[in-house]
């Protein structure tokens, strides 16, 4: 028996993560101090670079879009008790799906081609997740192992295809030809310009809206739908699922399919929204960031949006910081990100316990 960890909802979802982030920044500050730099200036550059300018904000929100998708992908699997660390591979395959759809259906108008491209991403991502899901459900092959292997498989498959099959013959770069113009998801600055509002140009595009819609959809699915109920029963109590007549194997496959489809959103944002071609390593390791985002957001869509914003700030502000304060290299920024993950994910229980203790005491004092 351990002391009960009863927390009001707001403390559980807002206060504890906030304390974790503050603690992480304090420790990160010490690290900055240790290499002889001023942590306050560093913090200023970080925030200035990510939130201080319209352009910076645009980039922050662009990264946030990526993180929302991969965070949701990890969260959906997590609710079914699965640790999907194959977001990288699933997004990579989703990129292949996009390229195949967009470059083969060039005759279609944009209002058809864009949704088809998104569906292609979702379908390929889902397929790449369904195989490990099937192996877990029917063969008991551990999902962590298989999704890692599928990341590698995706990576070599895409290299092979881009070098030998999909590359434009006259190009030396391992990338496809550009997607047709009508398939580009509009940049946010262009959308605003259409309404006569001038905002600074950035990579930010309408995929952000899709990401927020996906977050709402995941909330509805997980917490309100019959299917989400079944997913959570399987994740939280597999023997209760058997008792309830819910087939864990079926739910595991469905959850992985949904998870892979969501991971495909990363490819939509990066390729259809920005790069407009399929190229190598466009996922940039963001699939793994999704794990941290989902952990920090406690697998809840609102938490994931907030955590994605934080990681967006870190990625965009970190780039600015590395530029303005060269002593703080990109690697240093990765270290700071790592410290945040450590505090928000791994050491979460530390602060939770502390806060729960304080609450219990206060309650006792009042009683």
């Amino acid at each position, binding site marked *: 028996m351990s002391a*009960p960890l009863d927390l009001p909802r707001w403390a559980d979802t807002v206060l504890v993560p906030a304390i974790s982030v503050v603690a992480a920044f304090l420790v990160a500050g010490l690290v900055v101090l240790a290499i002889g730099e001023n942590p306050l200036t560093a913090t200023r550059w970080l925030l200035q670079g990510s939130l201080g300018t319209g352009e910076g904000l645009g980039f922050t929100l662009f990264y946030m879009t990526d993180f929302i998708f991969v965070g949701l992908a990890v969260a959906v699997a997590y609710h079914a008790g699965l640790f999907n660390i194959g977001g990288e591979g699933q997004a990579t395959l989703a990129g292949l799906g996009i390229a195949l759809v967009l470059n083969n259906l060039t005759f279609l108008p944009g209002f058809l081609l864009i949704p088809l491209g998104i569906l292609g991403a979702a379908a390929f991502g889902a397929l790449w997740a369904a195989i490990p899901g099937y192996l877990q459900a029917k063969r008991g092959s551990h999902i962590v192992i298989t999704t890692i292997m599928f990341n590698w498989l995706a990576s070599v498959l895409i290299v092979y295809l881009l070098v030998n099959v999909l590359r434009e013959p006259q190009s030396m770069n391992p990338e496809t030809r550009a997607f047709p113009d009508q398939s580009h998801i509009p940049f946010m600055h262009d959308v605003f310009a259409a309404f006569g509002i001038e905002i600074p140009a950035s990579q930010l595009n309408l995929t952000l809206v899709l990401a927020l819609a996906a977050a709402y959809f995941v909330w509805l699915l997980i917490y309100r739908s019959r299917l989400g*109920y079944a997913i959570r*029963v399987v994740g*939280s109590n597999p023997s209760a699922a058997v008792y309830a007549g819910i087939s864990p194997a079926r739910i595991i496959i469905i959850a992985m399919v949904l998870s892979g489809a969501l991971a495909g959103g990363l490819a939509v944002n990066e390729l259809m929204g920005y790069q407009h071609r399929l190229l190598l390593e466009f996922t940039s390791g963001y699939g793994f960031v999704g794990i941290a985002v989902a952990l920090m957001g406690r697998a809840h869509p609102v938490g994931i949006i907030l955590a994605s914003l934080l990681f967006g700030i870190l990625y965009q502000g970190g780039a600015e910081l590395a530029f303005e304060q060269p002593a703080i290299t990109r690697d240093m920024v990765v270290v700071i990100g790592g410290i945040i993950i450590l505090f928000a994910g791994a050491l979460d229980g530390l602060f939770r316990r502390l806060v729960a203790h304080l609450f*219990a005491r206060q*309650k006792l004092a009042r*009683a």
Partner: protein
Amino acid sequence: MSPAIELIAINKSFGAVHANKDVNLSVERGTIHGIVGENGAGKSTLMSILYGFYEADSGEVRVNGKPIAIRSPIDAICAGIGMVHQHFMLVEPLSVVDNVMLGAEGGAMLRAGEAKVRAELARLSKDYGLEIDVDAAVGDLSVGLQQRVEILKALYRGADILILDEPTAVLTPPEADALFGLLRSLKEQGKTVILITHKLREIMAITDRVSVMRRGEMVATVETANTSPPELAELMVGRRVLLRVEKEEKTPGAPLLEVENLSVVDSRGVLRVANASFTVRAGEIVGIAGVAGNGQSELLEAIAGMRQPVLGSIRLEGQAIHSSAHNPHQMRQLGLLHVPEDRLRTGLVPAFPAFESAILGFSHEPHLGRGPILDHDRLIADLAKKMEQYDVRPPAPRLKSSKFSGGNQQKIVLAREIERNPKVLLVGQPTRGVDIGAIEFIHRRLIALRDAGVAILLVSVELDEIMNLSDRILTMCGGKITGERKASETNEQDLGLLMAGVTDEAA
């Protein structure tokens, strides 16, 4: 002579829960002292303080008159206190000698320690009549003998005061009698025994004095000879309770559940149910008596469709169930509902709010929502109504399922199943970990269902419960049905023999 144990004004809180409030307890040397109380009354907390798992917030512990600080089980062992836990702390592949020696090896090499253990075990078994094969692997021993190893471990470590936590929960009646014989001979040798139990019959049979706890407080300590089970029950609950629910004789109706030659293997391929055949009729409670782990769990799961039987058939209302339709979902549709043995692992989802646990197994029902979306307001309102009918406390549908006490969790599960008008109801351990007040309520509900014509198959390891509720009793041992009795024509000894595998043919 000062008492073996004195606890003075012990207080212990977990967060806002005051588990022990100014508890005083005095246990005379050379006696068997019972401690009774409902779940959550604070018995286990108190014993955990005595054995050094927890430290009291305030208060004093005296052993043989001397105040001592017990900060860990090691301190307790040094003070001569030994504990036999409800769930044994044994290493199954190791021999009895190795288990006894574990943690008391007496040096880096084992040889000297082993010789000492063997000599000591020989002496102990002579003194107390504790016969045991010291070289047998503990995993091969019966549960009763495993418990004996636990007791030997404590004695080997020099325990003068032995705490036993619900020791008979896993024993057959004959094994329990053997245990009581052992406890008496320990007492004759001057040892002190503290017995934690919720079975009043055992308290009456073996203890010299008994202390009653209720809601963290010690409400009474009485001489066993001067009290009675109804009085103890009243002290435990704080009001009068009926220990035995009255039921009228009834003639059962048509057979609703027919099981024929059912055989079930577990996930490791071990045969758990062998060739079981029986019938449960409308308006009849058939009880299955047996020591835990003799196939009753697998039998229930197989009938409910959670496990595919390897052989045999099941008929519901005379209709044979095809193996492709034999799954929990289909069985529910056909009116066979199931209150599972293990509430927390199977019957509900501890992490879910109660209103979500209250639809486990029924989340597909169309009226619970619109299309694919569940209507939470409706689920909450539904459960609120049921909580009132079933007197669930607190009546809070949004509270996490794990936050309810065992009895209230069981009421939530029962309400879910009963309110769906079962034709056949499978009930596993309906009152395990449930307090006396709620037991009475649950028993009444089950009898009412029987009177309404439901066929009930009841599995319980509490023989009292089986005898109290059932119209007919089947006994199980080693996966086989070893006997069948009318409840009115049998007694504990008779059932005890059947449960131990002495079949009618052999007798």
